[in-house]
C-alpha cells in the first residue's frame, strides 16, 4: 500500500477561490468563494476513492480542477510524478490523456447534433497518436461493445437512447484514450434506481478489466460505500475525514461524518427508531465567509472555544485510527441499530 509507484494521483494543498467582484468597468475584488480550500488526497492504482459531501462543499469544483477544466489558485496535482498545474502546451495535452471524466447529466453532456460514433471518436481527433485514422471506426465499435451497447448503433443520435444508455456513451467516451484515472462526477444520480445498478456494475467491471483508478464523487453515501475502497468526506472546501470503508462507515470519528451518516435512511423498516440519530441544526455556512477555526463548529454539538481559535488539521488522533480534522475526534457508530 505504501509503495510510491502505486500512487497514480496525488494532490497537495489544492485551492480554488472564485473571486467576487464589484463594479462594471473597473472590477475590484471584494471577496472570494473558497470552493476548494486546501485538499490533500492520494489515489492508488486500481483503487476507487469516494468523495462525499453536501451542496457547497466543493465536490463539483474538485473534479474540474483534477481534469484541468479550472486552474487551481494554489497547490499541486501530481499525476505519475508530473505536476499538471505546471505543464503547458503539448506536454499538458499529452498528460491530460491519462485522466478523463464522466459527467453527471447524460442529457446535457452529449452534443445532440453529433452521432454517437462522432462523440466517442472525438477524443481521437484531439489525440490522433492514440489510434491511427484507419482504425478509429473499429475502435469506436469496440468501445460501444465494451460498455454494453450495440456496436451497430454508431450512427444514432443521443436522443435515441435512454438515460442509462447515454451514461454508457459518456463512459465509452471517457475510456477512448485508455486513461489510468477516471473522475466520475455524480455518474448515477440522474438515473432511476433500477438503472443505477446497471451503471455501477458496469463501472466495477471496467475497473477490473482495465485496472482503472476512479475518483467517485457523489452525494449518495450508500452508493459511495458500495463502490469505494476509501472515502473522503468534504465540508466547506476541506476534507474533514478520510479512511477505508470500515473506518468511515463503522467508526466515523468526525462529528460531521457522524451527522451525515446518521441522516441517511436505511432501506429496512426494522431499523426505524433503532439508530443513533443526529439531526443538525441550520444550513451549511456560505463558502464566501466560512467560520474561523473549525468550519463545522457553528453546527457542531461538541464545539468549544478551541474550535473557534485553532483550525484542526487532518491527522490521525489519539482516539481516531485514521485522519480526522476534529480536536475531539472519537468513534461513534451511527449506521447500525444501537
Amino acid at each position, binding site marked *: 500500500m505504501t509503495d510510491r509507484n502505486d500512487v497514480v494521483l496525488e494532490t497537495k494543498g489544492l485551492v480554488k477561490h472564485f473571486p467576487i467582484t464589484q463594479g462594471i468597468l473597473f472590477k475590484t475584488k471584494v471577496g472570494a468563494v473558497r470552493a476548494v480550500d486546501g485538499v490533500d488526497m492520494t489515489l492508488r492504482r486500481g483503487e476507487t476513492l469516494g468523495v462525499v459531501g*453536501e*451542496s457547497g462543499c466543493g465536490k463539483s469544483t474538485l473534479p474540474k480542477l483534477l481534469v484541468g477544466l479550472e486552474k487551481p489558485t494554489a497547490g499541486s496535482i501530481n499525476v505519475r510524478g508530473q505536476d499538471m498545474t505546471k505543464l503547458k502546451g503539448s506536454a499538458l495535452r499529452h498528460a491530460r490523456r491519462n485522466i478523463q471524466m464522466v459527467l453527471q447529466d447524460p442529457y446535457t453532456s452529449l452534443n445532440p447534433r453529433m452521432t454517437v460514433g462522432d462523440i466517442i471518436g472525438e477524443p481521437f481527433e484531439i489525440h490522433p497518436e492514440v489510434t491511427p485514422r484507419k482504425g478509429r471506426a473499429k475502435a469506436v465499435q469496440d468501445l460501444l461493445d465494451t460498455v454494453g451497447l450495440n456496436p451497430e448503433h454508431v450512427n444514432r443520435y443521443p436522443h435515441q437512447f*435512454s438515460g*442509462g444508455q447515454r451514461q454508457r456513451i459518456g463512459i465509452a467516451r471517457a475510456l477512448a484514450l485508455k486513461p489510468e484515472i477516471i473522475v466520475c462526477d455524480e455518474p448515477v444520480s440522474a438515473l*432511476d*434506481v*433500477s*438503472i*443505477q*445498478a*446497471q451503471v*455501477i*456494475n458496469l463501472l466495477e467491471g471496467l475497473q477490473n478489466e482495465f485496472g482503472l483508478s476512479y475518483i467517485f464523487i457523489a*452525494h449518495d*453515501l*450508500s*452508493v459511495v*460505500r*458500495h*463502490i469505494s475502497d476509501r472515502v473522503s468526506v468534504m465540508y466547506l472546501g476541506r476534507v474533514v475525514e478520510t479512511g477505508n*470503508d470500515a473506518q468511515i*462507515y463503522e467508526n466515523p470519528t468526525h462529528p460531521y461524518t457522524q*451527522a*451525515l*451518516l*446518521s*441522516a*441517511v*435512511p*436505511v*432501506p*429496512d*423498516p*426494522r*431499523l*426505524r427508531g433503532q439508530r443513533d*440519530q443526529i*439531526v*443538525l441544526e441550520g*444550513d*451549511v455556512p456560505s463558502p464566501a465567509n466560512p467560520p474561523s477555526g473549525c468550519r463545522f463548529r457553528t453546527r457542531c454539538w461538541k464545539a468549544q472555544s478551541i474550535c473557534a481559535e485553532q483550525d484542526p488539521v487532518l491527522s490521525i488522533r489519539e482516539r481516531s485510527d485514521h485522519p480526522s480534522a476534529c480536536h475531539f475526534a472519537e468513534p461513534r457508530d451511527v*449506521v*447500525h441499530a444501537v
Partner: protein
Amino acid sequence: MTDIKAEIDVLPGLDPHAPLLEVNNLHVEFRTQYGVARAVNGANFRLAPGETLAILGESGCGKSVTAQAIMGILDSPPGFVTQGEVKYRGTDLLKLPENQRRKMRANHIAMIFQDALSALNPVFTVGYQLGELFRKHRGMSRADAKKRSIELLDQVKIPAAKARIGDYPHQFSGGMRQRVMIAMALALDPEVLIADEPTTALDVTVQAQIMGLLAELQQQRNMGLILITHDMGVVADVADRISVMYAGKVVEEAGVYDIYSRPAHPYAKALLESIPRLDMKGQQLNVIRGLPPALTAIPQGCAFNPRCAYAQDVCRQDPPPPPYAVAPGRTARCHFWRDVIGE
C-alpha cells in the same frame, strides 16, 4: 373562520364515517401528437387519518400524475381522467364542479411539491403568498392574515419568522423554502397532505430535518399523508403502507414491514435487491434488465413481463394479472406471487 369548511361539509354524499380518501380504478391518459400515453392504468388505494401511504416508483410510473389527478391540477389538455373515482369521505371529487373542487384544495387536501423555488411565486414575498390563503379562503383582514402567517412559519420552525415574513423566496435556503411550502399546505388545516418528492432536491442532513418536521406535524394534526417518492430509504423510515407503481398500475400494496422482508411482486423484489445499503458492504447488486416501457406502448399482459425473471406465457397474454389477495390488506398483481414470496 370555519364558514367555508362548514359549507363543504354539507356537500351531498359527504359522509364523515366514510374512508378519508379512496382512489378506485383511476385511469389517466395524455393525448399527444405521438399517440396516447396511458400514464395511470387503474390505480387503487385508500388512506386513513393519521396514516402514511408511500407511493413508490421510478420516473414515468404514473405516481405524480396520480397525485395531480387527486388534486385536480392535471394539465388538461393533454391530460384526461378517463375512468375511476377519487372519493373523499364518500364524495367523488371527479364529479364536483370546479368551484367546489377549488374549495376542497388546501381546505381538505393539500399538496407540497419537489422544487419549492419553482412552486413559489418569485415576485411576491413569502408573507404575501401565505396570507393570500387566509384572505381568499377565510376572508381575513391583512393584519390578521399576517399574524396567522407568522404563527405558521413558527410552527414549521423557521427562525425569526417575524423578520423573514417580508423576504422573497430566493432569499431562503432550499430547506427553508421547503418549510415555507409545508406551512402553505398546512395553512387551512387539511385532512390529507400529498407530498410529491418533498426532499429529493435537498441534502441528506436537511432531508432528515424536513422528514422529522412532516412526521411531527402529521401526528399533531392526525393527517393522512401520501408520500410520493423513489427513495426506498425514506419510505422504510416513515411509511405505514406502500403502493409500488409500475407502468401506471399499483403492482403491490402492502404494509411496510411485509414488503421489505418478503416482497410478493417481482418488480418490488428486484428494486429492493438493486439498491446499495449504507449498513452493508460488498453485497451483489441485482440488475433489472431492460428499461421501463414507453407509456405509448405498454406491453400486452403484465407490463413487467419483458424484464421479469418469473415470466411465463400466461404473463404475456391479456388480461393482465388482477390484484391477487396475498394476505388481508395486501395485494400483488403477479400470477406467481406465491413463488416470489416463497424464496
